[in-house]
């Protein structure tokens, strides 16, 4: 029942945010229509960080308690996280092409996002390579923890190295009020979507574990 409430809530919020992005918010003066990608890219980027925070917490709890449910949480969150990171990279690329003239530049935040993406790719690969499921979960948790601690370090290193990405306007109040509101609604909609996906993924994972146990393969 709770799930349907969350679904309804997310759908309404998502529709509102779509209407705001495509109809309500004014077009940006310099960049034109392309700038509307902003309302997709920033929320998925935020979700990538949020989901990896959840991976981090789930991984620590799993290493301490060794309860499967924490691994299920971390793993489900990581799956959403890597999809969001991929989306952030893709939408960013589509935005960069008309504005910067290239699909990709080795600029600080792009590089940091790519490194982040690679770390979480390793998170899934190590499970495949570990052989045993519980060992894979333990190794993945190690990556989940070191990877998350690594994020600020990677950002620091790449920023020091080179920067061309515009500084986050959001925190400096340089965003028109209408754009700000649209962005906030978008972020809220995507955050709701994240929790919906997380709940669904966890229940799916739990069913998978149940089936495995019924079939007699170990978890």
């Amino acid at each position: 029942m709770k799930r349907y409430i969350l679904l309804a809530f997310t759908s309404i919020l998502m529709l509102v945010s779509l209407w705001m992005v495509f109809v309500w918010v004014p077009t940006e003066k310099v960049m034109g229509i392309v700038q509307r990608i902003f309302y997709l890219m920033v929320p998925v980027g935020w979700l990538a960080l949020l989901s990896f925070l959840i991976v981090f917490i789930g991984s620590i709890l799993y290493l301490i308690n060794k309860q499967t449910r924490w691994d299920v949480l971390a793993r489900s969150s990581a799956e959403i996280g890597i999809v969001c990171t991929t989306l952030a990279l893709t939408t960013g690329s589509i935005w960069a092409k008309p504005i910067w003239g290239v699909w990709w530049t080795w600029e600080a935040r792009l590089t940091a996002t790519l490194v982040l993406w690679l770390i979480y790719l390793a998170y899934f690969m190590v499970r495949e390579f570990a052989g045993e499921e519980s060992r894979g979960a333990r190794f993945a948790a190690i990556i989940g923890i070191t990877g998350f601690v690594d994020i600020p370090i990677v950002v620091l290193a790449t920023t020091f190295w080179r920067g061309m990405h515009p500084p986050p306007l959001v925190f400096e109040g340089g965003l028109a009020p209408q754009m700000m509101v649209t962005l906030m609604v978008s972020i809220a909609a995507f955050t709701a979507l994240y929790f919906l996906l997380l709940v669904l993924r966890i229940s799916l994972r739990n069913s998978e574990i149940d089936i495995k146990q019924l079939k007699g393969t170990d978890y």
Partner: protein
Amino acid sequence: MSFWRKVYAITRKDVLAELRTKETVSAVLVFTLLVIVIFNFAFGTQRDIIEKVASGMLWVTFAFAGVLSLNRAFVMEKEEGCLEGLMVAPVPREVIYVGKMLSSLIFMFLVEAIALPIFAFLFNLNVLTWQNVAVVLLATTGFVAVGTLFSALAVNTKAREMVLPILFFPIVSPVIIFAVQGSDLALSGAPWGSLFSVMQFLIIFDVIFLVISYLIFSFVVEE
């Protein structure tokens, strides 16, 4: 025995084993030499090109050589069944981490101590300055700190040698970024003052990586 006595015992064991076989260091050295030769094929002999890519070359070489030697650190233990011996030894797991980390560090420093003069000799580069040596020492420490953790992890997976670089390069990329920057500055003859910020970051990264690896190492080897 105190903490450091136990650490010393593990490091000493590794160094002794290496002195008897000389497997790791000699193989890694030959590998390093081969990489240097390949770089010569790739970039030619033009002076300005070599100067531009020098610090990158240095760190690609050390990164690959590092992975090679870190792979050996635990594969050797696993193959001879020594890992079980270490596990049942009455020492905390953290001691094993520090001991293995120190021995890997010694091997890496040894390889670098021989490779740097070779670099200087073959490319006529000024890599043997105190500034560059300091950068190399700091960056290698961070590199090995994380590397030892992931080496212990990779040895328990199916495709050992392949797993280590995949896991470990993305995590350690900040160290490589600063190492390349630092060496670049040092090679162009920059004074200590301009290297200060790079060194500062490298030291911070070393400390963070050492602490994290130290704290979670015991979860890697438990079984």
